[in-house]
């Protein structure tokens, strides 16, 4: 199982904070997962998740798209940060 989380503006625009997907060969990289998610809601998620500045983290570490995913990984998608 992949544990997927969205935050801030991305979460609001998708109307979704968390979801789980069965890990599989087409979801074995972050980019693969992102493309899979873009297809959700008749492709409506693409507008949000295909933005250039989306940050991707696996198990609390920021990664690039070609990062590998393993079963039980926690994957997060979020906009540029604005704390402090």
């Amino acid at each position, binding site marked *: 199982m992949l544990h997927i*989380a969205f*935050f*801030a*503006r991305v979460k*609001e625009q998708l109307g979704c904070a968390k979801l789980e997907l069965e890990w599989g060969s087409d979801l074995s990289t972050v980019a693969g997962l992102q493309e899979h998610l873009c297809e959700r809601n008749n492709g409506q998620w693409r507008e949000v998740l295909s933005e250039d*500045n989306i*940050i991707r*983290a696996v198990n*609390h*570490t*920021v990664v690039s798209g070609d990062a590998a995913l393993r079963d039980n990984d926690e994957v*997060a998608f*979020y*906009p*540029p*940060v*604005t*704390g*402090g």
Partner: protein
Amino acid sequence: MTNPEKPYSVIIQQADFDIAQLQRELLREGAREGAIATFTGYVRADKDAGNIQCMELEHYPGMTEKSIEATIAQAAERWPILAAGVVHRVGRLYPGDQIVWVGVSSIHRGAAFSACEYVMDFLKAEAPLWKKELGDQGGEWVEAKEIDAVRAGAWSGGEE
């Protein structure tokens, strides 16, 4: 922070914090500290357009702490830090409220000043926290500022 085994502390909380108490907690046994440098961030009232009534802060529990702890560890490789602490508030905050505190102790002031600024710069550029301004016209997510990435990036140029 008084535990000598763990001189670095990162706390994400809703509650306000007491700067004087946080600073005292940086002091270790043995009185080796010659300097503590601290930074406190506040919620500003003014904005380019309209007034901010309040602000809602969201974060990524678990990753926020790890990100800031990693930043402190990087600072500790660069400067001789004795102890460091970060407190960041989340939830609803109002103009004038304290929002973030960074404190670093060292033997001399140079390392304390630099490490404090370094931790704050990377916190702003990397820690997964997001501000939403709530005003007369509803809520609006704050856009990331390029200057924050520039300030963090400048540390890799080796300036201290």
